[in-house]
């Protein structure tokens, strides 16, 4: 009942919108500060680490509120990281750089999630 209330839907949308606005701008700022493929790479790795932490925290201790996850995970972090720019930059790069880009983003992104999970379980043990 409370989940389907129009005000609830509006609240969810507003939280995601705010996160998306900030996430996209942070990614853009990072790509302005760095050269070449580094901006997207750094955003993806950092974002994966933080999302790993937030979502594993939800599976474990679950101290953070649902609203926090909406604004930070669904809104900010998912907008901060990007697959489309990663794919386009891979296509536009030379073959060696393209292979490095895919391997780097994948390897460090997955490691980031795992490390985020480790950090979350450390906090749970506290």
């Amino acid at each position: 009942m409370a989940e389907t209330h129009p005000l609830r839907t509006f609240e969810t949308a507003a939280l995601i919108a705010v996160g998306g606005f900030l996430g996209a701008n942070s990614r853009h700022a990072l790509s302005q500060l760095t050269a070449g493929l580094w901006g997207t790479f750094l955003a993806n790795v950092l974002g994966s680490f933080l999302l790993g932490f937030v979502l594993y925290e939800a599976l474990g201790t679950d101290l953070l509120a649902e609203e926090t996850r909406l604004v930070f995970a669904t809104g900010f972090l998912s907008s901060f990281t990007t697959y489309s720019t990663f794919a386009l930059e891979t296509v536009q790069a030379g073959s060696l750089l393209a292979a490095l880009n895919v391997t780097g983003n994948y390897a460090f992104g997955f490691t980031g999630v795992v490390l985020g999970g480790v950090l979350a379980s450390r906090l749970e043990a506290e």
Partner: protein
Amino acid sequence: MAVPAVPDAWLVGLGGMAGALLRHWTTTVVEGERFPVGTLTVNVLGSFLLGFVTFLGLGNDALLFVGTGLCGSYTTFSSFSFHTVRLWETDERTASLVFAVGNLLAALAALALAWLLSRAIVPRCLRPAPRPALVGLPPSYPCGGIPTACCPVPCECPPSGFVWRSLFHMYKRKLTIFYCELMLNVVRITKR
């Protein structure tokens, strides 16, 4: 009539806002029980649109709003890596590998499709030249800037898309000028 410039942060931010909301909506509509179909869908659709607007050679403002903002936020790498790791952990190893490789292959296929489509609808003189470096460089046109010169002299700007090629033999000059002017207006509108 000078239109005041919209700050980059608003273009990127508003695009990002729309992208995040659309992603949330897409992932609630397309939801997989055991396989993260929602994330795969947004990544493929977003890659297609980003490729399309990039290959069309739209102006800087349009690229910031649609490309960096909308498509950048609509697609997500963090949820993608989380789902991959999660599938691997829960002993869905095959699904995890299929998901990781599938996202890449499907996104690349979407970009290829976007490229073909952009070639079909944009005449050669209006296409951005292939970029030597990565992102951030303004697209350059073979005719030099906005190719006003290509409109009165259609022979300097032969249309080459496959949709166009068959029409060309029928209408030749007249349609070329019309089409060229139309595309010029699109470029003018989308350029700051």
